[in-house]
């Protein structure tokens, strides 16, 4: 086992937040599931004396939990990754690591895996909550696997991004702030940009007069480029059935893979150069 992984996990599990965070995480997710369940029930025809389809509730609960889980993990991912190299600089242990026989790639890998493992722990601990949807129907194991796999990929890319910023800055507070800014850019700004593009497209199409029965053409896929960078869309795309040769989930996978690998490459380079700044 990479000694960095063992060290990081040992130190992480000794922190108080190692049990506080999962507890809060499961508590919040449980509350979200309960709210989603009762809200769906209260809005259902059953309340008005009609029939209710358990599958509807199952899908609603599942989607709610998937998005709630992603939101929470996107909030937590920078905490584990963005400070992991800066802490070595702050406590002045980085020179000792760099003069050991650990390569920059091993140092990066140890930090990355330990950050991702903790996020995976949270993800796995929420699987029982997620699987509640099974009992209600409408959701199968395939959806759970696809949503979990895409969530993991998104978190891996965000962790790699956090590590990259951690390799640039000297202080954890700076690298964490910039990583949060990047997460906001990926989630909110990409969505806002896409909404503006879509609105522009629809306005343009509304101005074109068409013969009766001819509908407006479908929006070109390249208009959706900002969405491919959006973590929420990436997870949504993993649950969608599509007829495209290159489905959106594949594009999102490639985009997040590229983002993660580019961040990893730049982080290696920065770790190797670290000594130069004194």
């Amino acid at each position, binding site marked *: 086992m990479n*000694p*960095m992984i*063992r*060290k990081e996990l*040992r*130190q992480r599990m*000794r*922190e108080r937040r190692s049990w506080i965070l999962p507890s809060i995480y499961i508590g919040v997710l449980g509350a979200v599931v309960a709210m989603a369940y009762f809200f769906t029930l209260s809005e259902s025809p059953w309340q008005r004396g009609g029939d209710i389809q358990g599958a509807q509730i199952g899908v609603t609960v599942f989607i709610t939990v998937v998005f709630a889980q992603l939101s929470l993990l996107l909030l937590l991912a920078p905490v584990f990754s963005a400070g992991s190299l800066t802490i*070595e600089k702050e*406590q*002045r*242990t*980085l*020179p*000792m*690591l*760099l*003069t*050991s*026989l*650990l*390569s920059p790639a091993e140092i990066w890998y140890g930090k990355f895996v330990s950050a991702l493992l903790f996020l995976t722990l949270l993800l796995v601990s929420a699987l029982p909550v997620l699987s509640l949807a099974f009992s209600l129907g409408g959701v199968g194991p395939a959806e759970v696997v696809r949503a979990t796999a895409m969530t993991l990929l998104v978190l891996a890319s965000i962790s790699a991004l956090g590590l990259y910023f951690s390799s640039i800055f000297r202080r954890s507070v700076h690298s964490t702030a910039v990583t949060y800014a990047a997460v906001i850019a990926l989630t909110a700004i990409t969505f806002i940009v896409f909404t503006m593009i879509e609105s522009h497209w629809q306005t343009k199409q509304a101005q074109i007069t068409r013969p009766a029965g001819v509908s407006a053409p479908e929006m070109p896929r390249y208009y959706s480029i900002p969405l491919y960078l959006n973590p929420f869309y990436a997870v949504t795309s993993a649950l969608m059935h599509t007829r495209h040769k290159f489905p959106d989930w594949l594009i999102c996978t490639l985009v997040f893979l590229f983002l993660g690998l580019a961040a990893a490459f730049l982080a290696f380079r920065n770790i190797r150069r*670290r*000594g*130069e700044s*004194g």
Partner: protein
Amino acid sequence: MIEIESIGKHYGCRVALENFSLRIESGELFGLVGPNGAGKSTLIKILATLQPPDSGRARVNGKDVTAEPSSVRAVIGYLPDVPGLYQDMRVEEFLEFFADAFHLREPRRRQAVDRALARSGLERRRNDFVEQLSFGMKQRLVLAKTLLHDPPVLLLDEPATGLDPLARIELRELLKELNREGLTIFLSSHILSDLEDICTRVALIADGRNAAGLDGQSVLSLSAPSDSRVACEVEVLGDLQFATRASSGFSGAQLVSTQGQRLRVELPGGSEQGTAWLQHLLSAGVKIVHFDSRGPGLEERYRQAFEKNRPGGEQ
């Protein structure tokens, strides 16, 4: 062996090292002294492969620090000027982690950790958290970590800084012992008496360049007593000016300083020159209450080399 040839390093427009050269033989306990900002830490970081030089080359045990950094790391033990520690790890875990980081495999790993604990005197504290150790113990732990992989060369940047007198003595003894075991030790320090006690030779560095003492040497040999110059000091009764004038009449006497009723000079030659100078002063009528004669120590030679560069120093 450490070979440094015309090393240069700049940080932006600031010169950290310029054309600095040095050769340290295998088995030497070698010191590096110079004022703050002289380039000592930069030089040691270059040797430790933490920073590449802008020009020149450096080799440790025949391995080039720029071309073969991994090979160099395998043969050096590096102690930074402000060493960091994982406070939330136990002493033994800390050493085990670095034993792993140096790719030591069982049973060598276990032996290395046990030996490091014994050498640093931390056997009883092996299960304590690092944060529970005193500063001196932490310094010993870092040094123990530095020795884990049995490196033949030690690069120590200000290892005695912040240590109490007893810890300094222990460190000196440990370094002597390691040197006797055959390790080449290159250390920088501001504590000249420590360097004088343990080093065989000392190099002078100022403004990133090789600095020279009054005798023109940039590397001072401390192992053999100098017989080329002798420093003498007298405490006189009465007029110090008169004593100074009398001293200037002695061939080769170079005034070093006057302070209170004390007059210090440096003379070419051995201790017999000091006796001759004393007789010269007495015969001139100078009343002397105290006389001391010795070869110039490291402190004296350091002062000679660097005082002229300080603001308000001799020009």
